[in-house]
């Protein structure tokens, strides 16, 4: 039952991330509480598959996804999560206020992901996080995903310096 639910959620998340059409009803079916007036950001967690001990890698990704979902939920947000290969993408829905308070909330989530992924499992060297800007229309999930990938790309080439930031 739980597994079916997770697979259904993963399918909807993948559809959205790939920029495919997805009815509001489909999202609601896997994410009770979702409504079209919510905003969202995509959090992308990129992990490096360890050189050794990769036997249970899929299981590890699933565990990480579940913990990530839990941490997002604790912050009062809904999420759709997709995990594949070396990354976990979470579409996080939230009520946006005019003061962009969600930035602080997402910083907290990022911090907890750092603790979760780095300290416990990857020793700080192999995990990167990118967070998109906020969007409202779910047709933009694909764009949000690209935003997050761009941030990770900049981290990978070590360019996020002080200039202009």
């Amino acid at each position, binding site marked *: 039952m739980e597994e079916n639910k997770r697979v259904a959620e993963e399918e909807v998340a*993948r559809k959205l*991330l*790939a920029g495919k059409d997805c009815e509001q009803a489909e999202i609601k079916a896997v994410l009770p509480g979702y409504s079209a007036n919510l905003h969202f950001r995509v959090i992308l967690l990129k992990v490096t598959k360890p050189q050794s001990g990769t036997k249970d890698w899929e299981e590890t990704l699933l565990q990480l996804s579940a913990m990530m979902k839990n941490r997002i939920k604790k912050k009062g947000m809904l999420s759709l999560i*997709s995990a*594949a*290969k070396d*990354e976990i*993408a979470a579409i996080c829905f939230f009520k946006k206020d005019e003061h962009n308070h969600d*930035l602080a909330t*997402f910083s907290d989530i*990022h911090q907890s992901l750092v603790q979760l992924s780095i300290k416990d499992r990857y020793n700080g060297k192999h995990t*990167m*996080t*990118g*967070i*998109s*800007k906020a969007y409202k229309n779910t047709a933009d999930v694909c764009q949000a995903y*690209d*935003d*997050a*990938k*761009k*941030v*990770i*790309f*900049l*981290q990978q*080439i*070590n*360019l*996020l*310096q*002080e*200039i*202009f*930031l």
Partner: protein
Amino acid sequence: MMRKKSSFCNRSTCFKKFFYDKIGIYQILLLGEKNEYVETFIYDQLGPVLEYDAKMNASLLTTLEVYLKNRGRKKETANELFIVRQTLYHRLEKIEELLGYQFMEPARRLALETAILAYHIYQSGHTHFNLEDYQL
């Protein structure tokens, strides 16, 4: 031409930059289309310095980068580059000779800083940002 490793990017600071909202000018530099104009712009702005570095195995680009980052403060620049001030003066003279004496004038400086950021993206092996490389 290989990119010289930047000496000034504080890794702990870098790591905290995880919001797309905060990546500033990179939002433009990573628009996703191969932009030949950007490539031309990089070489229009930095060409003489890049050529000199390649020919002389020098590090004027890094010097310029750190000097701009430190807003022209020589003491901080020399410290960050682990060189004595006299060495820095020689390098700055050379940069001035190559780029013109007004290279710290605001508009020119902005152009140089932007060109340096774009140059590093190009040198990373991504002549343009290829999203296909990052698909799930």
